[in-house]
């Protein structure tokens, strides 16, 4: 996580808490991503199954979102470090 530097991971209670939060955040990300990509990618309901175009759209949407998350996370880490730098 981009903000892992914010806490003390040597504290075992802290480590446990971070692990729980990471699992919860991963689940949230997964569910949000499905809804976010479903909205623009699946627009017709003439059939009960995804066609190949919809599948490709969902895949590209998820990939783009994760790449954007990573990129934005780098900027986030840099900037929040700057703010808290002069200890």
């Amino acid at each position: 996580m981009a903000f892992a530097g914010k806490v003390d991971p040597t504290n075992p209670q802290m480590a446990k808490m971070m692990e729980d939060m990471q699992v919860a955040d991963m689940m949230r990300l997964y569910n949000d991503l499905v809804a976010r990509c479903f909205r623009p990618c699946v627009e017709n309901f003439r059939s009960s199954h995804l066609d190949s175009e919809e599948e490709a759209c969902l895949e590209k949407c998820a990939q783009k979102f994760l790449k954007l998350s990573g990129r934005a996370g780098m900027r986030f880490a840099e900037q929040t470090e700057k703010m808290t730098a002069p200890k």
Partner: protein
Amino acid sequence: FFGGGRQQQVNVEAQAQELRFYMSMYNHMVDECFLKCIPTKFKEGDLNAGETTCVDRCAIKFLEAHTKIGATLQKMNQGM
């Protein structure tokens, strides 16, 4: 046998997390299918035939999208 309380506690938490995951998945599905299938001029309180068909298909497609995106996440995790 002793210490079983602790084990059970962990188990309850894991199951709670799983349940929360399914609840969130279901709630998102309902949100998206309401958006896709129901025009905002509400003419009656029942679902009409067209809406009912749309909801059935929307629910199934949403779950397929869930599987598809799960697979994409896994592929990307391994690729990195």
